[in-house]
């Protein structure tokens, strides 16, 4: 980019919205992958019109544009790998409308997810997707990555709550996808195509999201097991027993010990695994579902199975789970959080596979995560400055991917491909699918200016 380009960007975006200093651009070069790619200029987006004008200029001049929300991603989705313009979405953070009859909320894309939920709760409603970064990440980023979270089993993931979108295409066209209705089959389902498109097809500027009434009752249960196999069997039996829990989380021994090192909460270090289970709904249904859950856990030899009798007790139960990643993060300098996902029926095998990989490469791997979704988070504890170990880590990651795919699973349950997993995409996706995906990308973005370098390695 030359001075003329920069001046033109200032003219379009407003000089106060253009960040040029090296120091400040550095702060927009990273995300949660800890990789760094310097953008040449950062633009604070403030309207759909402004973004459209930027794209008209960028597509004419073939300048790359990379959208960025809160940069909490784990696959490098918001990194400006080819330089160019980094489009900062966080100033577009308004709630536009809430409609408690249609159960819809209209928001700008840069709003923080938790604020959407907070607004919904003022109307007795809630926004179900609950990614780990709910306090920090933006809705635009959540949609682009199709973020998951803790409530996946019963409530699904982000894409299940997106009814309509306003977006800007790489040529500057402003488009509106989807409907405000429950049903709608007019044309291709472009909303679903956008969910999980990782910011490579269009920049999402506004979203119409679905809300649900807050369930009146819930129950939280903590079950401890001697072996992780017994815990995993319980997961399977709970679902086949006809109970769809709102949350079904597993924590393995390595993670329990890390939590105990950090919190000193009095967890039994010798147990093999724990399950955190939550059911919600009408009181009567919650009571009978909680009974089924406890019965299943006990019949799988649970060492103990306790239902929280107060909010305080519930918070205690959750304290350990909330601290899981932080506790692992304190063990060694780097934590590589994977999200390979398998069908629920194959969890036991996946856990075994991860344990074998940990042994094979002599790497500490803590596993916790959304067992109900088959979405485990094997977390490799390492030091990415240690070049020798990095090679082992990379091999272990590849083995984890292979294991997941062999079990009928997928490379990524909720973090996305981005640059982190781009090299592995063909392990899972057949040639025909890969080629048609590239053609979709080309149809949206013929010059490859929008978020280049992501998902595909050969564009």
């Amino acid at each position, binding site marked *: 980019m030359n001075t003329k380009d920069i001046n033109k960007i200032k003219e379009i975006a407003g000089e106060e919205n253009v960040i040029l200093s090296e120091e400040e651009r*550095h702060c927009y070069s990273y995300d949660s992958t800890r990789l760094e790619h310097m953008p040449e200029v950062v633009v604070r987006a403030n309207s759909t019109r402004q973004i459209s004008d930027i794209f008209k200029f960028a597509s004419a001049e073939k300048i790359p544009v990379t959208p960025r929300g809160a940069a909490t991603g784990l696959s490098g989705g918001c990194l400006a790998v080819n330089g160019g313009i980094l489009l900062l979405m966080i100033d577009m953070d308004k709630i536009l409308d809430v409609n408690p009859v249609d159960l819809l909320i209209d928001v700008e894309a840069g709003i923080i997810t938790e604020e959407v939920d907070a607004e919904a709760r003022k109307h007795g409603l809630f926004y179900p997707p609950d990614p780990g970064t709910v306090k920090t990440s933006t809705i635009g980023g959540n949609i682009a990555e199709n973020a998951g979270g803790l409530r996946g089993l019963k409530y699904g993931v982000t894409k299940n709550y997106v009814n309509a979108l306003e977006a800007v295409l790489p040529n500057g066209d402003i488009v509106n996808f989807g409907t405000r209705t429950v049903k709608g089959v007019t044309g291709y389902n472009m909303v679903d195509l956008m969910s999980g498109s990782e910011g490579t097809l269009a920049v999402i500027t506004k979203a119409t999201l679905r809300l649900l009434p807050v369930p009146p009752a819930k129950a939280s249960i903590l079950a401890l097991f001697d072996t992780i196999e017994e815990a995993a069997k319980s997961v399977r039996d709970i679902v086949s027993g006809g109970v769809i829990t709102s949350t079904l989380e597993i924590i393995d021994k390595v993670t329990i010990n890390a939590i105990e090192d950090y919190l000193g909460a009095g967890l039994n270090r010798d147990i093999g695994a724990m399950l955190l289970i939550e059911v919600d709904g009408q009181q009567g249904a919650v009571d009978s579902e909680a009974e089924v859950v406890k019965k299943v856990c006990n019949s799988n030899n649970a060492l103990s199975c306790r239902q929280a009798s107060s909010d305080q007790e519930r918070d205690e139960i959750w304290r350990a789970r909330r601290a899981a990643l932080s506790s692992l993060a304190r063990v060694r300098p780097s*934590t590589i959080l994977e999200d390979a996902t398998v069908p629920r029926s194959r969890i036991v095998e996946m856990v075994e596979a991860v344990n074998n990989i940990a042994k094979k490469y002599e790497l500490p791997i803590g596993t916790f995560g959304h067992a109900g979704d088959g979405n485990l988070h094997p977390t490799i504890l390492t030091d990415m400055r240690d070049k020798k170990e990095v090679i082992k880590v990379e091999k272990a990651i590849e083995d984890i991917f292979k294991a997941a795919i062999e079990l009928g699973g997928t490379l990524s349950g909720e973090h996305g491909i981005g640059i982190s997993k781009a090299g592995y995409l063909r392990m899972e996706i057949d040639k025909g699918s890969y080629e048609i995906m590239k053609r979709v990308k080309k149809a949206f973005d013929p010059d490859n200016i929008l978020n280049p370098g992501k998902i595909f390695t050969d564009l």
Partner: protein
Amino acid sequence: MADKKIKTNDKARIFKRYDDLFNCSRCGSCTSYCPVYKNTGDEAVSPRGKLSLIEAISQGKLDFTEKISDKIYTCTVCGYCDSECPSGVKINELYEEMRQDLVDSEKYPQALDFLKRRLSEAYNVTFDTNEGRIDWTKQIPDSKPEDFLKDSADVFYFVGCVSSFSPRTFSIPRAIVQIFKKADVDFGLLGDEEWCCGFPLLSSGMKSEAKKLADHNIARVKEKKAKTLITSCPSCYHTWKHEYSKISSEKIDFEIMHISQYILKLIDERKIKLNKLDLKVAYHDPCDLGRNSGVYDEPRKVIEAIPGIDFIELAANRNLANCCGGGGNLESLDAGLSGKIAQSRAREIIEADVDILLSACQQCERTLAAALKKLKKEAKRKIKVRDIAELVLESMNAK
């Protein structure tokens, strides 16, 4: 990357801290807590951004620049990031060292030069001479200023610069002195022998200048044979309690208490009698008393000891309380941003809908009162801002 020479300060402390810096996983959790980030959206002032800048310096990728200095100093020193960081990065410590490095390489904001000069010449942070330290005592009934200057006493009250010199906050030390008198406490003031505690220097990265003040203050209190030193300013308290032993060679042989702790002691010992007040109140935890010193319970116990009080917890309280915006030196470096942070906190107070917002810090009270005044149209009722000591005195005087 590596070909870029480090032009200044190759002795910088930060070069030794790469291990600690590398522990930041860049998860961005801190961006949901940091008051300066939330009110600017500027990643470079977020803890994650600041740490990434410091890391880049430590790796020779970036140089010490004025711009980086501005970003590093845009901070209320509230400690929220440090206490909530999921990876346990020692953020407070790293900031402190970075600020020292910036001072060493003369890249600190010019506004801090005034502070440095004033504290070495007049030993207080205002434009006044230090002789005026106890002018505020003139309005106290049945006493003369000299009555409070004693050669020895059980208790010495370290008033702090703001409460000593800023007329808007005089009501706090006046209330405290009257409580002491009513409770028959054997107490004294240091008068012009009280020097600034050094907190503004410490939070600017000027440790050696702060040491002089610490040495002086400790020596004076020791001379007075005090058993207990009391502060009403949480930053003075934090500095006395947690920083002096690190920077001064003088040994402290007396107890250090915040006024909220001391009042609770007086209540427990039945030295003061509290009468009924029909008021709905909330309490704002000052960062230097709560998060940075761990004093959460005593102020609450004092408030709840007053009969008739309807005590409401703010939604964000204790270790999760948001900063008032007046912390560190932000107000003198960026008054606009400090005011914006104060208004964010004021909105949370308005949400609680109380008669009185209590705090235990003259600085929080000043910034929050100003913010609530600006936002008075948003409030359902007029919310007064008071110090716990003032409310205690009012309760003691109530019929």
